[in-house]
């Protein structure tokens, strides 16, 4: 130990220079990534935080006079902020479990070997690659109360006509339907991959042990999939809290404020009402809430993994 220490302190200047050169080379490889991340990620975040504690100076388009927590207090007092948070929560609480359950169920059903499975899987990608605005517009047409095809079909089974974008509850349902249409296939793909990666022999053991389809599902497949389900949930959650585009295209927060999710509200406040400082404060609050909840979900999913 002491001999080693002695050797280190005795390092010749040449060797030390070599080490510094080595360090420089290593860091130089990281510079592009660091630059890119600071410009694209760190700067906007700090800019937002800076604004949120200041009076916004329209002339310099930056932070003006420091006002401390003033913007935060104002936002917290604004009932519309809480309303749109509530709307976002309703959307998340319904859409996320729905998509995860639906995604894994479809994957389980199409997991059996059959011809054309590859084609169906390829078709599943379409909703994901359609631009959100296009998806929103398309669904506006499908769900149109007067000449939309969904109401036409629902008419056959004696339902409707439903005013999809006029009724607050139905509008939220419409947003969730569009979002689910868009994102369930993504979960189906993940789930299909996960199902294919499951150990085959455990299922064979279950077959020999006499487990039927149902108990194979509940006693073997689901427990084995729990870590993947949890991870999928977290990934989907990270996408869903950013919900903006579909609402923008389909309902624009309406009717009234029924589908006015937080991101749309922040956007409106910033770029319509030009209340940049207040919306920056809201953005920071949402960021922190999201981080805390994501941390909780990650912790939870790790606990679940340990359990199984």
């Amino acid at each position, binding site marked *: 130990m002491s001999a080693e220490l002695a050797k280190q302190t005795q390092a010749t200047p040449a060797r030390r220079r070599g080490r510094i050169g080595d360090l420089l080379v290593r860091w130089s490889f990281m510079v592009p990534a660091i630059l890119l991340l600071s410009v694209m990620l760190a700067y906007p975040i700090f800019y937002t935080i800076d604004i949120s504690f200041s009076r916004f100076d329209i002339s310099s388009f930056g932070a003006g006079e420091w006002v401390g927590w003033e913007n935060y207090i104002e936002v917290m007092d604004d009932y519309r902020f809480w309303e749109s948070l509530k709307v976002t929560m309703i959307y998340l609480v319904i859409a996320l479990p729905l998509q995860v359950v639906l995604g894994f169920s479809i994957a389980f059903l199409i997991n059996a070997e059959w011809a054309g499975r590859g084609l169906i899987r390829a078709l599943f990608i379409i909703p994901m690659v359609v631009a959100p605005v296009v998806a929103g517009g398309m669904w506006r047409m499908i769900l149109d109360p007067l000449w939309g095809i969904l109401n036409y079909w629902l008419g056959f089974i004696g339902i409707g006509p439903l005013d999809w974008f006029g009724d607050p509850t139905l509008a939220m349902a419409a947003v969730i339907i569009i979002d689910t249409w868009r994102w369930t296939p993504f979960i189906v793909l993940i789930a299909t991959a996960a199902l294919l990666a499951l*150990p085959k*022999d*455990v299922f*064979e*053991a*279950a*077959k*020999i*042990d*006499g*487990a*039927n389809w149902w*108990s194979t599902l509940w*006693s*073997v497949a689901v*427990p*084995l999939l*729990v870590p993947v389900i949890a991870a999928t949930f977290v990934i989907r959650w990270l996408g869903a809290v950013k919900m903006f585009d579909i609402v923008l295209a389909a309902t624009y927060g309406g009717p009234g404020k029924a589908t006015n999710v937080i991101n749309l509200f922040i956007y409106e406040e910033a770029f319509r009402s030009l209340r940049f400082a207040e919306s920056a404060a809201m953005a920071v609050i949402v960021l922190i809430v999201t981080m805390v909840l994501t941390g909780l979900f990650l912790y939870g999913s790790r606990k679940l993994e340990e*359990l*199984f």
Partner: protein
Amino acid sequence: MSTVQIRDARKSYGAVEVLHGVSLDIEDGEFVALVGPSGCGKSTLLRMIAGLEDITGGDILIGDRVVNHIAPKDRDIAMVFQNYALYPHKNVRDNMGFALRQRRIRKAEIEQRVNNTAQILGLENLLDRKPRQLSGGQRQRVAMGRAIVRDPNVFLFDEPLSNLDAKLRVQMRSEIKELHQRLKTTTIYVTHDQIEAMTLADRVVVMNGGVVEQEGSPLDLYDNPASLFVAAFIGSPPMNFLEGDLVGGTNLVLADSTALPLPIGDPKGRSRVTVGIRPEHFTIADSGWPATVSVVEPTGSETQITARLAGHIVRILIRGRTATKPGETIHLAIAPEYVHLFDAAPVPQLAELEDVA
């Protein structure tokens, strides 16, 4: 307990036939090992018996029932998998009781049967552990427990010991043997390890390329291999082979025209043969085939000598110790009953099998 009959079983994947008509009669309570190199069809055959692969042709009977179209769970078999295939989220107790619960057996009885089995296998203290909290040997024991607890007609083992380290493998081997002697359940055991097959089974079935090469008691296969393949496959270290012409009845003339006198002639009168001699059947004598020692490997109870005989490497295994040193010339003698003669053919390459054995 029950017999198993396999009648001309065939298996094809698409146009490729991998099992070319295998027939086997397994008696009630018998321990049969299916052994062969990878790809020989032994696992496929076992999975066909289990019902995990369907049967392309022929019949499989368990007891007196054709099971070709009977679901695995109704065949009254239990299987132990190579990777244990335990339910990872269930503890040992639930892993072992799962099959019984599927049959709606009363809780009290399940509890009792699981406890009995756990006792047999020494798992009493592990019943509440999850598989990942167990060592490889313990997992293997749980997998066996899961099979035993069901009290099936037939046990199927699919390379159950190949994931264990060498020492544990030997220990589990004797445990499986002891278990079979105690339960006397018909057992079919697939392995690529000929030693495992030889030590465990009442009868060994050597398979190669989708057909049965030879079947018989372990010592029968060792003493009277019917083909070069079986001769090369059974025995460790493997048999030595020398290919050459038989001249004058008992003189083996090798490719480089070295003449080696054999103690016997060929009863079939072939002119070109491959001679097989097991390493342990050579004796070092004053006269005989001259060979130059290249390596001497003592293990205490026996010594393995690697030597060169007219350019061919031969292995010699002698009991006890020897003063022979590398570079010396020794003379090898063979008793007539230990000379195996086969049709001349290249020796099957089984190097990979030795490795895993």
